[in-house]
């Protein structure tokens, strides 16, 4: 079994007190609990403060482009469906720039896990509104207040019959870890929206603000009931639910592709013995 030091990477360059630190620590605990050594899974990261995540770890990493984590993760996973693939992105990255890819990853039900560091603001570019910023919030770039409605990723995911939909909070590491573990173990695309205070640019959605509102979803909640899940996904404001909001057992993309039914693509050797037969087809 791996020890925590095995996952040790560069020293994080995040702001002191950033919610990302607890996500990083919890993630290490989660992969250790899952029994995944650094070489046994791949993180696909985008750009933003969340995008730096894998550099502060030691594991297979594809740190691609802003908004493009899910297509890259899809390619990796289709080629090697025996390896867990976890995409890590911020709210701007995957709800803004990469929104189209999120929709189609959920439709495709590729068995990739998407962990979103959702701080409801753009950190790396210094404080602009993100898709999850509250309506009316004033920023340097939106001096008269944000007029676009706030994106609700949980409701979007339930509407698209996303295979696993959960929300966690960086301030509740115990639950965050159990959700991360459950998401990786779940068969199907998983969206985990992790509320993560930005201590520098978001003066509204602070640790304290979240603490006053979040609650753990009750144990008897039926997470497979899509209508109830939709209702729950709409909760925001005074009370914000944490936990698995919805899950289903749709078949995954990897199970439906004939070329990889017997063996992952990466383990299939190139065999050109059939080329002569292909040539014949042109006669």
């Amino acid at each position, binding site marked *: 079994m791996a020890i925590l030091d095995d996952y040790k*990477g*560069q020293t994080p360059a995040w702001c002191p007190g950033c919610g990302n630190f607890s996500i990083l620590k919890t993630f290490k605990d989660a992969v250790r609990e899952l029994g995944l*050594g*650094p*070489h*046994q899974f*791949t993180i*696909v990261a985008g*750009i933003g403060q969340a995008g*730096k995540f*894998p*550099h502060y770890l*030691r*594991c*297979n*990493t*594809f*740190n*691609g*482009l802003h908004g*493009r984590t*899910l*297509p*890259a*993760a*899809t*390619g*990796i*996973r*289709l*080629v*090697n469906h*025996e*390896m867990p693939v976890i995409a890590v992105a911020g709210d701007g990255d995957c709800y803004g720039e990469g929104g*189209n*890819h999120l*929709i*189609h990853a959920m439709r495709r039900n590729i068995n990739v896990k998407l962990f979103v560091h959702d701080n409801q603001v753009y950190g790396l570019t210094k404080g602009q509104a993100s898709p999850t910023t509250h309506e009316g919030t004033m920023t340097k770039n939106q001096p008269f207040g944000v007029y676009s409605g706030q994106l609700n990723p949980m409701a979007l995911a339930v509407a698209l019959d996303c295979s696993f939909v959960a929300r966690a909070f960086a301030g509740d590491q115990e639950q965050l870890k159990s959700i991360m573990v459950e998401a990786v173990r779940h068969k199907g695309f998983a969206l985990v929206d992790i509320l993560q205070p930005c201590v520098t640019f978001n003066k509204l959605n602070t640790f304290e603000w979240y603490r006053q509102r979040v609650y753990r979803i009750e144990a008897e909640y039926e997470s497979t009931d899509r209508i109830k899940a939709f209702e729950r996904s709409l909760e925001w404001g005074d009370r914000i639910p944490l936990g698995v909001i919805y899950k289903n057992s749709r078949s995954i993309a990897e199970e439906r*592709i*004939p*070329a*990889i039914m017997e063996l992952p*693509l*990466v383990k*299939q050797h*190139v*065999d*050109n013995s*059939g*080329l*002569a037969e*292909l*040539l014949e087809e*042109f*006669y």
Partner: protein
Amino acid sequence: MDYSIKIGGEAGQGIQTVGDTLARVFARAGYHVFTHQDYESRIRGGHNFYQVRLSDRPVTASLSRIDILAAFDPESIDIHSAEVSDEGRIIYDSSALRRTLEGPRFLDIPFSSLAVEHGGNRIMANTVATGAILGMLGMDMGILLDIIAATFRNKGEAVIKANNAAASAGFVFAANNCSGCSFALSEQTGPKMLIAGIDGISFGAVASGCKFYSAYPMTPSTGIMNYLAEKGKTFGIIVEQAEDEVAAINMALGASFAGVRAMTATSGGGFALMVEGLSLAAMTETPIVIGLGQRPGPATGLPTRTEQAELQFALHAAHGEFPRIIMAPGTPEQAFYLTNRAFDLAEKYQVPAFVIFDQYLADTQWTYEAFDLERVIYTDYRLREDALATVADYKRYAFTDTGVSPLAVPGASRHVVVADSDEHDEEGHISEDAGIRREMVNKRIFRKMPLIREEIQPPLLYGDETPAIVLVGWGSTYGIIKEAVDILSAGNRIAMLHFSELYPFPAARGRKGADGKEWFDYLTFLRNAGKTICIENNATGQFAGLVRAETGYEFTANINRYDGRPFTTEDLLGELHGHIG
């Protein structure tokens, strides 16, 4: 013997079926065949045509002069009857076109009523027409019947029988009524292969061990996706239709990172979306092959037509400085071998490699005796389980003399593989250190680029070796220029110089080829000719610009066509007349 048959009609009337079937019949009979298509961007209606040329000697372009015109719509007659030679024939169905045409060239064949009478359904009017054309040419029906049997194998004996009857009815009608038809075919030989440019690329991808293809459908690249999807199960290829071209290239890069050869293809508009991903391929040094099927732009342009106007786009696309490889095949055969080279070089040097083509090359079909599968190269440059077991300290971007770092497959060993779009250190982690930045740029550009240039082959010389006139082309104009040289060489010292490996731009001198022969000094060759004419299917002479930028050489004249149509041999000869008298 050299006949051209044009089938014209609306989209949805099945002219492609007639054209494809005739081309296949002629190729199997051993004739040399060349086909090209012209169609509008619509599913039904409009006017389209399919042209088939057959000869007893190799043919590599279409002619403007037609011997048989099969008209399925009135426009075919209005637009194309002037192209038909005096000895030629125009076949049509007066009841379907609602008009009767007088004159020795017109032959009214009741396609529809013969189809109903003999096949039981007017849908077989196409089959009647196919049979009729063979009847006019005096060719026997055997091969056509074989093709019908194979085509309708899954539809049952009754359908095959009905189509046979319809084809025979057309054949007999034409044979009996084509009075004064003077068509005479030369003797049949062994079957030839018939292949379109797009299939050359697709087959080349399979032969190169391509395991992953992601794309968004876009003319004229979609044929690659069709082909690979069909072969996917047998050859272990995943074909994923992406939500957009941005996703397509990022999926392919993910697949390549994960350990297999990957490709995407599109046209200019889709490639515009891929440009960011191209830069990612460069920075992460992830091998990828990109098929770029040019069509006339800007924006939506002429979606189903042809142009060579994306060369400068492919050369300069993406932010940052990095090496890339650009192949531009001129024939389906070159498409096959150059796609294979693109895969090999992309992986060997961990750079993006383009196969740039256009609608014209994609759709034209050529005949060959065979492709030599022994010439296919496959070397797996990735480090997998066994090779990785002996590596003590793996670094994805380790500095080496060649600039090429070991490309390990993640998950295949205890080593971790880290790829990063940020500037990075040897391990792949973010770094803003000036020294590391400088070394990484040196590695990616200055170490790799000269080695890649060494691999690039000089242009192909065809014709006179000490010419007064050189016709220069790249990509899909190969066949047209070659035919022009053949015709003009009767009275001129003339040659073609054709470039198919465009970037890094081939070296003109300074080394010997792999066979020990002196390297082709094409610049001196050009300078020694009095007239050098660069022929391009674009408005601004993009290739001439590349030559000027790379060598300082300026062609003495340019011929550019930019109406969305390919050159025909006669068109080009007409244009050349003004230059060479």
